[in-house]
């Protein structure tokens, strides 16, 4: 079974600074996807960024980028130029396709990020 671990329960960062959120996972699969999801205080979760395991290049979406270390099974999220709107819970997630189709996502416990003005 796959597991996703987010060991930091909370982090705080000053507005405009950079912060890195950690995530490790455990799997015996070779083909999988990794994700970071954001859950603002309003509760609706949204996808921040996605990484395909077969791609060596780290995914980037504007101020958000990942450091994907496949051998170490590590998948951290870097938020540059932090903004007040980045305040939220962030969840790391894993999915391994089954028979070429999507399957369930396994989520970590999340980390609460606070951006200070």
């Amino acid at each position, binding site marked *: 079974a796959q597991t*996703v671990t987010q060991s930091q329960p909370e982090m705080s960062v000053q507005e405009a600074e950079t912060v890195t959120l950690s995530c490790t996972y455990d799997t015996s699969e070779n083909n999988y996807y990794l994700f970071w*999801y954001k859950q603002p205080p309003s509760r609706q979760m949204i996808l921040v960024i*996605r990484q395909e395991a077969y791609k060596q290049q780290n995914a980037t979406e504007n101020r958000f980028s990942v450091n994907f270390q496949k051998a170490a099974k590590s998948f951290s999220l870097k938020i540059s130029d932090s903004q007040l709107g980045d305040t939220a819970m962030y969840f790391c997630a894993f999915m391994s396709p089954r028979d070429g189709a999507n399957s*369930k996502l396994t989520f970590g416990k999340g980390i609460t990020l606070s951006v200070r003005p």
Partner: protein
Amino acid sequence: GAGVSQSPSNKVTEKGKDVELRCDPISGHTALYWYRQSLGQGLEFLIYFQGNSAPDKSGLPSDRFSAERTGGSVSTLTIQRTQQEDSAVYLCASSLAIRAGELFFGEGSRLTVL
């Protein structure tokens, strides 16, 4: 609406009662997921529907929990004989098969069992 819609947004019930939670996915999305989020916990997978395939029910915590998806669209999660430990936010999400793992979540149904 354009997003995933869940109802009710809040439900308070007494221990032992049955509850039904409803999810309207985004039109055209073939995959539908139910997750449970308890305070201080991550998202616990409950069940996954994909098109006409048999659902993945591996996350349902007991036989008191069941879900169905009618006509490949609306889904209902039913909890029978509710217990206090069932109190949580139940999140529904839908996705397109071609966008692996890109889930669109509803705002959730907060269930409180007294």
